């Protein structure tokens, strides 16, 4: 699909449409939608901003490419004065006191925020069912889950309620819902986009990224959000990715992980579609190499061990003292415990408890520290692989989206469904889901800081398979 951002920009500049009419149309769609993709609608703010864009155009002033473009925000990002609930009871009335850096950069570029989007509470989930706002329904088949945790964001983009949305990806939370809803979703190299103002889940893999319907829109939004930020000391400097740089592919060698496709867990259709895509790539003269990789259960267990440890630490601040839905107990300690027990979902509690388990004496050496060592080995494995290949291609998920209600019954099955996404999170690698190749898409991964190569290969694939 062509760039929606450029198309709308052209329509605004040539006065085919007004920004107010565009924003109003999207707000109406969001309000009427039955997919549970919305936590709160920012109609007053959006219409105010739209009127300013219209005034600029009427005055003959030039507008930037993102000026007047309506977008959505996963409900874990701070936007001053708006509710930021993380889809949780604990923060259902919490208002952002400040604005996240990535969102501020989009506002500075003139983009218009329409909606705070439904997601798994605190990012804890792979289906967007772990939320107080109702399970998000899949955009293609509403009986199925939207995927998660950025499920509302993926559905809003897929249904054209937003032109693009900003999701958060800790272990696959942008890439998997993008795959389930047939759109693009990008997890940049860790640190490329500042995490300041993103509610922390697992700080060492949390990434800010866009979901959109075209590679060009992903590129435009990524460029605006990227950059080193003094407010996030893990953020890194990066250079802008030009349209020309991603137009022609320089990729000569592609690899894929043999054990991903040989796994018993993979759906037979996804497997055969993936292998058919590999054949089409070979037919274009690209060398394809089979690569050895860690077993899926090791990847999933390493990821969840570290992510649970980090979330137990990050969420310990949520005790109802300064903000949140405090429930008074008999004393201070009791107040903390009652507040957290009553307000956290079962899945969030499961992860906090698991995290504290692995961080406690007697467990940390055999599990947490070993998990850290395994993560280093996984990263070393990636470094070695990217000496041999330019790109790694993989399926996004082993199976098709489950029916709503099924994932919640079996947490272990939900964790294992992240088998193909979590490894790249542990490696902090740039990875894009493209809505091609298998029914839940393909993942394109490059070495750290090679985000440009990912988009380049995506453009190549668009015309190849």
């Amino acid at each position, binding site marked *: 699909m062509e760039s929606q951002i450029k198309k709308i920009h052209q329509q605004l500049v040539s006065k085919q449409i007004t920004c107010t009419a565009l924003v109003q149309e999207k707000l109406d769609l969001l309000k009427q939608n039955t997919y549970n993709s919305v936590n709160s609608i920012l109609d007053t703010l959006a219409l105010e901003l739209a009127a300013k864009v219209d005034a600029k155009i009427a005055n003959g002033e030039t507008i930037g490419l993102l000026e007047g473009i309506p977008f959505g925000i996963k409900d874990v990002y701070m936007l001053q004065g708006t509710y930021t609930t993380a889809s949780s009871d604990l923060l259902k009335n919490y208002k952002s006191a400040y604005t996240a850096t990535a969102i501020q950069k989009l506002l500075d570029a003139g983009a218009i925020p329409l909606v705070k989007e439904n997601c798994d509470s605190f990012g804890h989930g792979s289906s967007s069912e772990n939320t107080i706002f109702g399970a998000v329904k899949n955009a293609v088949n509403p009986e199925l889950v939207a995927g998660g945790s950025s499920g509302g964001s993926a559905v809003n983009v897929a249904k054209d309620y937003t032109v693009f949305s900003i999701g958060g990806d800790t272990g696959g939370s942008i890439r998997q819902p993008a795959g389930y809803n047939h759109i693009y979703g990008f997890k940049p190299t860790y640190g490329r986009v500042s995490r300041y103002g993103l509610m922390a889940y697992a700080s060492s893999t949390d990434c800010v990224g866009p979901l959109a319907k075209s590679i060009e829109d992903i590129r435009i939004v990524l460029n605006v959000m990227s950059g080193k930020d003094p407010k996030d000391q893990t953020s890194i400097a990066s250079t802008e990715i030009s349209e020309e740089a991603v137009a022609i592919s320089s990729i000569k060698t592609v690899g894929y992980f043999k054990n991903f496709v040989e796994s018993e867990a993979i759906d037979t259709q996804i497997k055969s579609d993936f292998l058919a895509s590999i054949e089409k790539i070979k037919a274009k003269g690209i060398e394809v190499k089979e690569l050895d990789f860690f077993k899926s259960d090791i990847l999933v267990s390493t990821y969840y061990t570290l992510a649970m440890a980090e979330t137990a630490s990050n969420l310990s601040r949520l005790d109802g003292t300064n*903000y949140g839905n405090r429930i008074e107990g008999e004393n201070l300690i009791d107040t903390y415990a009652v507040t957290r027990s009553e307000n*956290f979902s079962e899945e969030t509690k499961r992860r906090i*408890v698991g995290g504290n*388990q692995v961080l406690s004496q007697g467990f940390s050496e055999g599990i947490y520290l070993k998990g850290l060592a395994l993560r280093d080995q996984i990263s*070393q494995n990636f470094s070695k692989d990217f000496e041999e290949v330019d790109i790694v291609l993989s399926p996004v998920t082993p199976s098709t989206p489950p029916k709503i209600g099924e994932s919640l019954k079996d947490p272990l099955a939900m964790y294992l469904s992240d088998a193909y996404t979590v490894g790249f999170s542990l490696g902090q690698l740039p990875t894009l889901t493209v809505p091609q190749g298998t029914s839940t898409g393909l993942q394109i991964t490059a070495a750290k800081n090679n985000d440009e190569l990912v988009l380049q290969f995506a453009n190549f694939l668009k015309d190849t398979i």
Partner: protein
Amino acid sequence: MTVDILSSIKGAQSSESVNKLFDVIRNASSNNNAANTVNYNCVSVNDLREDVVVESSAIEKQIILENFPNKKNGFLVVAKVIEG
């Protein structure tokens, strides 16, 4: 200390599903030579941001007060402290 106390969650118990994940790690073979060599995200002391106090804006202060869970007669009410 038990996990319910560590987590400040009443009646919290470890989950069977999560324990299965941990068992995989426990039984995995790991090469100790790799420990903490790749994924460090440390910040150079030459690259630290300025240690300056930034005054919050009026709107920020107002929202922080608005978010406070309990107020009485213009005071912010904290939870009861532990006695004894």
